[in-house]
């Protein structure tokens, strides 16, 4: 379905060159839910944006249904993109359009007549369970509702693939669970292949069939979720899966007491807090707000 061959993406800013994605090859099968997991800055977003060529790889090839996208013309690429829906951490809904109008957008792009697209949008609203919000504007929706709208919009053109870049990272645990359930349902009901980018192992664990662990722009290991999670081989995978084992060698999984602390914005003050914890031998884990 999707094949990435030796994808490399470099960004050159001023005098520094960053290799965000470094020689990544992947094969995603039709109908599966594929997870790409890694810490913030690993290059996951860049990689997924290479799939629909929002980011043009510096080197390597992207194949979608056996067509090479990296060499496709503008028009061909646009047609391919209509077969690949994408959803984002920040939802990216059109704020001046209602829920229904948002879902109609990709159909307008395809020049579908108004009556048909309204009918299609209504079907999708039903699928994502948002019928009663059809005429609401995004500013009046909760995060979960916004993501449901975004999913409906991404599915409007009947895509083969749905790319999800941190789709649940801005949501609370309950909304996260319901969005994941919705994605699973879409995968099973419509047979849509789903690629999920996340920095949270629970997300991948819950719905993915296979997973690739990424750090420093490279895939560290990949395979069936069960295998990777039971027997993580790479350091990154272990850090992601067994986050309770820190460098100091404290007991894994032995959480004495959990407490949430908000770190100050200021980098210097942040370091003071970190140092305080370290000196008092208090184990701590810094959350990643988004990625």
């Amino acid at each position, binding site marked *: 379905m999707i094949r990435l061959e030796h994808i490399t993406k470099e960004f050159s800013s001023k005098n520094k060159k960053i290799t965000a994605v470094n020689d990544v090859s992947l094969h995603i099968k039709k109908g599966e839910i594929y997870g790409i997991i890694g810490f913030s800055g690993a290059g996951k977003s860049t990689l997924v944006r290479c799939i629909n060529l*929002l980011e043009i790889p510096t080197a390597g090839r992207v194949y979608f249904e056996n067509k090479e996208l990296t060499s496709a013309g503008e028009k061909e690429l646009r047609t391919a993109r209509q077969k690949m829906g994408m959803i984002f951490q920040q939802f990216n809904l059109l704020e001046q359009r209602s829920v229904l109008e948002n879902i109609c957008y990709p159909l307008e*792009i395809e020049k579908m007549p108004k009556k048909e697209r309204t009918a299609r949008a209504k079907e999708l609203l039903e699928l994502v369970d948002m019928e009663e919000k059809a005429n609401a504007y995004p*500013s009046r929706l909760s995060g979960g509702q916004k993501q449901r709208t975004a999913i409906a919009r991404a599915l409007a053109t009947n895509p083969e693939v749905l790319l999800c870049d941190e789709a649940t990272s801005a949501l609370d645990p309950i909304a996260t669970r319901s969005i994941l359930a919705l994605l699973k349902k879409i995968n099973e009901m419509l047979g849509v292949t789903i690629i999920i980018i996340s920095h949270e192992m629970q997300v991948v664990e819950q719905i993915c069939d296979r997973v690739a662990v990424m750090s420093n722009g490279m895939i560290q290991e990949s395979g069936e979720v069960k295998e990777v999670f039971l027997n993580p081989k790479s350091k990154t995978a272990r850090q992601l899966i067994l986050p309770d084992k820190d460098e100091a060698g404290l007991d894994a999984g032995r959480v004495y007491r959990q407490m949430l602390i908000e770190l100050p914005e200021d980098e210097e003050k942040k370091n003071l807090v970190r140092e305080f914890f370290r000196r008092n031998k208090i184990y701590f884990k810094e959350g990643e707000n988004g990625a």
Partner: protein
Amino acid sequence: MNQQMMELLADGIRETLYMTIVSTIIAYLAGIPLGVISFVTDKQGICKNRAVHFTVGIFINLVRSMPFLILLVAIIPFTRLLVGTTIGSTATIVPLVVAAAPYVARMVESSLKEVNPGVIEAAMSMGSSRFQIIYKVLLPEAKPSLLAGVLISMATILGYSAMAGFVGGGGLGAIAINYGYYRYQTDIMLITVALLVLIVQLFQEVGMRIVSRTDRRR
């Protein structure tokens, strides 16, 4: 105040509104494409093009940095070519548009910059063409900000139109100069100024109400 004076002021108001509104419309017809081009050819734009961005930027800055009165005089031959005369309100529209269009272009550009780049990216991911992104995403998403910009532009153009009264333009500005300044009729001067303030205030009040009603973000 006599009947004659009333009629004179009524004519002044009519001419001022005519100049301001027509100039604003034409300035936007030119300013929107200019602003859009400048925005989309910028570094992060959807049609990145340094040469075009740079050229448009130079052109905009050049006209914008020229004092209006100088511009007014400098383009007199052009004005005569276009409307056949250089006095009266129709002739004033020419320099007003020339002065306002680059200003409008910058306003438009800054409104477009407020559009969430993520939304543009989402539109790209759905296979939109660049043109579709411009007229289906950028402009509609920036609409409230663009409308607020129209109000500011109108007030500025109205001020310029009054200035044009000095060199043969029509409207309230001309009345203020001819009666208030040359003939020392201070009362006329005050009345025209009050009328100008009133018009600006009215535009602003009514306009802002419309703007906030069209904005779907609240």
